[in-house]
């Protein structure tokens, strides 16, 4: 079958999709977007987290057909522009929240979504929101630090844009 989906603002088509394929497989193997990861392919690790119509989902649990005509945003589409990083991406690098980085794309999408929804989440809220994203390397301390940092920077950036006449 053919699947048409808007990915990171671009309309994309994938042909010869077998009906058992997941959105994750289509992104990774058919659309050349391997940024979303495949650590479990059974909805348990969050490494494949993408935004579908603005909501975080595990792309491994979404059948390719379910993504027909939807808007999908992946880690590759978080930054605005090729030479820039989104605040949450910048904060992850800076805080040392990236080791092997296999959990990183999913965490970034989930954290980005959290900050957009919650502004300056408390620690308990951060932990709750990221509970579906496993990381085996960092013990999560630096991830907490990075999310706090990104949230603080996003909030102050928003304040200063409001200030500008």
């Amino acid at each position, binding site marked *: 079958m053919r699947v048409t989906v808007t990915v990171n603002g671009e309309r994309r088509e994938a042909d010869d999709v077998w009906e058992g394929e997941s959105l994750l497989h289509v992104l990774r193997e058919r659309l050349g977007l391997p940024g979303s990861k495949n650590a479990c392919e059974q909805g348990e690790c969050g490494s494949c987290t993408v935004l579908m119509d603005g909501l975080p989902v595990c792309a491994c649990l979404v059948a390719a057909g379910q993504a027909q005509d939807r808007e999908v945003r992946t*880690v590759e589409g978080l930054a605005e522009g090729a030479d820039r990083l989104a605040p949450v991406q910048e904060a*992850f690098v800076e805080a040392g929240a990236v080791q092997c*980085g296999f959990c990183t794309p999913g965490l970034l999408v989930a954290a980005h979504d959290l900050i957009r929804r919650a502004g300056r989440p408390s620690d308990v809220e951060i932990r709750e929101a990221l509970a579906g994203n496993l990381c085996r390397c960092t013990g999560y301390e630096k991830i907490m630090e990075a999310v706090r940092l990104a949230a603080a920077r996003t909030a102050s950036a928003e304040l200063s844009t409001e200030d500008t006449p």
Partner: protein
Amino acid sequence: MTQRTSPERGVREPTTTAAAAATAVTGGIGDSARRPDGTLKVRGEFAYSSDLWHEDMLWGATLRSPHPYARILSVDLTEALRTPGVHAVLTHEDVPGENIYGLEHADQPVLAVDVVRYQGEPVAVVAADHPETAQRAAKRIRVEYEPLEPVTDMVAAARGEGPPLHPDGNVVRHLRIRKGDAEATADVMVVGEYEVGMQDQAFLGPESGLAVPAEDGGVDLYVATQWLHVDQRQVARALGLPLAKVRLTLAGVGGAFGGREDLSMQVHACMLALRTGRPVKMVYNRQESFFGHVHRHPAKIYYEHGATRDGDLVYVRAKIYLDGGAYASSTTAVVANAATLGVGPYTVDNVAIDCWGVYTNNPPCGAMRGFGAVQAAFGYESQMDELARRLGVDPVELRIRNAIAEGDTMPTGQLVDSAAPVAELLRRVKNLPLPPAVRTEPVDVRELPGGVSNTTHGEGVVRGVGYGVGIKNVCFSEGFDDYSTARLRLQVIGGEATALIHTAAAEIGQGLVTIKQQIVRSELGVERVTVQPMDTSVGNGGSTSASRQTYMTGGAVRQVCHTVRERVLRMAGRRVGRAPDGLALAGGKVVDARGEVVADLAEVLGDEAVEATEVYRHRPTHRVDPERGQGNAHVQYAFAAHRAVVDVDVELGLVRVVQLDCAQDVGRAVNPQAVLGQIHGGSAQGLGLAVMEEIQVVDGRVRNPSFTDYLIPTILDMPPMTVDVLELADPHAPYGLRGVGEPPTISSTPAIVAAIRAATGRALNRVPVRPEHITGT
């Protein structure tokens, strides 16, 4: 919230000009320089082994044994071969070279011949044009088995009971350590029996790689591994090819923790690629991953500790059994660690330890972070707590009283000849601030055991505090020729002096790529350092394990920098007409002893590239003698101490670790941020072993091969940590550094269990601790 103190820093620093220059450089040694791969990783552009793609590539799949032990009576490939889209179906008959491999002993077939020895053992492999087609075709291979009664009891195997699974019987290694008086007696005696469950590395990036057939009849393999050259050696032997025709390049590695030291899909993908003449990609899914790599050895441990009434240890006797499963992997080294480190970081005059590593039909076990030391530490630290209880003394005081220190000897007779601040680490971790008491008002269930399951509002919740301290050997031990190689090229690129650093040492997430850059920046005073892809076109870098890479590859990089620096300074000396002795490199310039610039480095280099390759070896170690286990087996010892604070719902048996703090000596923090990352991550894996992680094996069969049933700590399970980093230089090591990765995994488990014991009063002699162990139901 992390704090980092290093009051001792510099006190015992070997004074070399390199070290002095080192601290001054931005992005150099001692700086929390950023990872060179960080930006790619956060953009989703870093190519992991499972992301690789090649035009025309096929997908591989593996058929595995459903039985823990069985004879293979027949294999019928007809239907699999008939499946549309299938390009090859291969069995042991198609292994081009020797059908045998193994890390320390070659005892494992690439594909099973007439017997399978564990559930999940590969029997056949398939290549097809779609991964699903390959999987389906594999299922169509008909294998007729005659199931046999599996050997599953490690203690019985050590006694020689049951059928031998390999020609030399089921004991892979029995190591004896004897020190002092075997008959020693003491005022107080504590006896304990302990068990450690089988832990999984659970790295997130699945086993995967891409094999591309080459025109010379060889193969290029892009793979996630911990040790390119040991893979190359084993793959070449199995393929019947010379080393030069088997070229490996490291693909992005999604964590490893020991689980990638052995081969997984390497030979299989190469066989399929050579047979089909097409590139072949193999990617395990999570379930297959649980069968596709070795695990941490489960252990049964018997300890007897004798002490004076004042709390001085008089003797330690132990029997340690380690289940290596169907194949040896690194079992001999795991036995060595458990035995030689079996009394822990304590001085004891009289020691008798026997340690066995055995073959069974359980899943093969091998390397996992802290191997051997982790299992023993749960036993000896539990014993120390019990001894403290019996003596009515503070458990930290008892540990400090018996703590090993520089100048003491180990049970092997080896002198501890650099800093061993065990007592200091315990004092420091004890002095870190404690969290506020159990909060009942206002109740936030998210901060209580059970969390949003809303199982308690504070009733039945008891707080406990516990401590643990551990010891680990760093680098390869027992006379192994352990070395690493680094190649460096210094040349002008785009008008700027640029260093290209090339090693085969695997970056698995820990940040060795950053460390290499930092060392080159400090040693050569150049800002631009490019890390070249890690591959087998440069000499062996050794394994990324045993906490050894910053030490070993760091040592090689330092050495090659010195060679290049010497040459460049000679060139500079000739150019400016001065003796090279008084010259140095800093900030892209050649400077004299007073720091005055005498030449620009780029000008000195001109069109010339200065290139060198160096091999670094640590000081030699020796095998211990077989009778008494005496000898200088280890290169360096490393220590960490933890304090755990837990809240336990004693009615339901639910545990919440509230805080986990650590003090560790790292000799020299080459990258402080990465050091913290190792301590956090290692502590989390120890937490997992303490309260949740176990591969459940019943009659040789794995019951929980998924992240649904094998639980690893989430961000809700892992508490905040305060970390106190000590830097007491080891004069034998490059920059005085001490391996960092493993010690935190060793002491966090016993600390957490001690805290649960303190809260519940239960004996708890098995990890992971399960709710029923706490409730006693």
